[in-house]
């Protein structure tokens, strides 16, 4: 007891340099983001004249004009993005949970082999499946449909989500399953009535990450969608940036800012699940 560190007494007053340093680091890190938001609210002529954050006059014209700057308004692109994202989230949540249950609770032949293969796909570079998948979807006539982007999510192809659910389900007490089994519940009942509802935190984490990754996804949307009416938000932004002239930076910033808002909302309201998700499985976001 004599050598206790006296944290609460002596350290807190001395801590302000650390806080100062951390706040400085935060400001430097977030400055580009703040600059983007403030530039989107500045008149066009002002953007590249000052690095300051406060616009001389607040204008929303960049948002209004940016929204319709491409031939098709962004409404269409947001609808497309949301369709793809929502369907993918549903697929990922349902099938990752189902697969997680099979790996965590059921006993069957070759389970360990399948499980190791599943873990290996976590490290698989996407390149090796890229070309054959494209050829396959091309043969199926699925190019320029949303199918190549959503169908795989109904087959638990994201190993990260399966792993997350396996880890979580392993933590649910087995007594609950066994009690239900004594009452005559079969495996499907146990999954539907016990495991699925109890793994809600893991499912929410799955849904959030699946939303964010699909929303940010660029390469597969670039490959499979090239008709204007099918474009998603990232694809539309890309068109915007390559078709842009010097006078529309403000609009570009406005549309880029808007594209981050769904993620920011999850970030604000899903904090707990995001942090727990990465911390418990140890995977990146």
């Amino acid at each position, binding site marked *: 007891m004599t050598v206790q560190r006296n944290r609460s007494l002596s350290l807190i007053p001395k801590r302000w340099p650390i806080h100062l340093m951390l706040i400085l680091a935060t400001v430097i890190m977030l400055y580009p983001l703040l600059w983007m938001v403030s530039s989107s609210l500045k008149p066009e002529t002002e953007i590249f004249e000052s690095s300051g954050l406060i616009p001389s006059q607040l204008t929303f014209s960049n948002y209004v004009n940016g929204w319709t700057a491409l031939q098709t308004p962004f409404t269409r692109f947001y609808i497309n993005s949301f369709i793809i994202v929502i369907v993918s989230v549903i697929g990922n949540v349902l099938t990752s949970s189902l697969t997680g249950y099979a790996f965590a609770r059921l006993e069957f032949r070759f389970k360990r082999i399948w499980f190791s293969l599943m873990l290996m796909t976590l490290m698989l570079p996407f390149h090796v499946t890229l070309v*054959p998948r494209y050829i396959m979807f091309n043969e199926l006539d699925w190019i320029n449909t949303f199918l190549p982007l959503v169908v795989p999510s109904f087959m638990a192809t994201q190993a990260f989500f399966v792993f997350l659910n396996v880890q979580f389900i392993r933590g649910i007490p087995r007594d609950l399953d066994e009690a239900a089994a004594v009452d005559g519940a079969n495996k499907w009942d146990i999954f539907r009535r016990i495991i699925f509802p109890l793994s809600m935190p893991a499912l929410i984490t799955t849904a959030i990450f699946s939303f964010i990754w699909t929303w940010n996804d660029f390469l597969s949307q670039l490959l499979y969608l090239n008709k204007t009416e099918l474009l998603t938000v990232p694809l539309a932004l890309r068109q915007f940036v390559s078709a842009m002239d010097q006078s529309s930076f403000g609009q570009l910033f406005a549309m*880029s800012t808007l594209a981050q808002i769904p993620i920011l909302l999850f970030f604000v309201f899903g904090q707990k699940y995001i942090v727990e998700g990465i*911390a418990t499985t140890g995977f990146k976001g």
Partner: protein
Amino acid sequence: MQSTLTARTDQPVKSGRKFTLRQDLTGYIFLLPWLIGFVVFTLGPILASLYLSFTNYDLMTMPEWVGIFNYNRLLTRDARFAQSMSVTFTFVVTSVPLQLIVALGIALVLNRGIRGLPWYRALFYLPSLLGGSVAIAILWRQVFGNDGLLNQILLIFGIEGQSWIGSPDTALSTLIVLRVWQFGSPMVIFLAGLKQVPQSLYEAANIDGANSVQQFFKITLPLITPIFFFNLVLQMISAFQAFTPAYIISDGTGAPADSTLFYSLYIYIQGFRYFRMGYAAAMAWIMLIVIVFFTILNFGLSRFWVFYGDED
């Protein structure tokens, strides 16, 4: 926490092969969606791309068997391939260590019982969520562009900037900065790992009179090497696959002077701009071999520096 990568095997191991047909049937019914997905979207395509890598295929005519021609050409006669390899290696070996050191440094500071930890953690993590998007790549283009944010700030100090994105000497560095900027996700993993270090060790060390530097090198650092290793493996694999920022910054070309021609970008160009599917498949297999090699190398080297304590 140490062995997050290898799954826990906490259920009792059944002796022998005593699975009933019924058990098998139930198990496989639940596994079916994943199993179909694995065969159709992963295993099948891996094998198909191996086959395609030995052919010429343009989507229109039948694949034509050419033996090792694609590999031969890639490894001996394709200067852009060599360039894309070198760009990608440079990117991986600079951005990953930098990112991990920053992540660990900040995690160590935050782990000292700082008030407002959740706020700092959240704000530092934010770039990791946004960073891979097209919108952020667009922002980067403007920040490091000719009259972008960086040059405006430099001008305050009287320094005449240049287009960092437009110069072959600096374009790749801006992408490295973009990756280091996303140090938040390894940082969160480090924080979780640091919390696992038993407080009793520090107390014992205090009694023995160890100062905080000694405590860091003798306790903290050895005990978090497994986390460091884990982050290293994951970040390396993901850095090898970077695509979106390079595409956006260079309009899909790898410009200027191929200085941002990431491997993924070059595969995309060969496969989906020139429709050389066989050639792209050969590149994909080379990437797979490179990643497997580095992962095995990582695991092999880990014996020399990763400390797996037996305290639990």
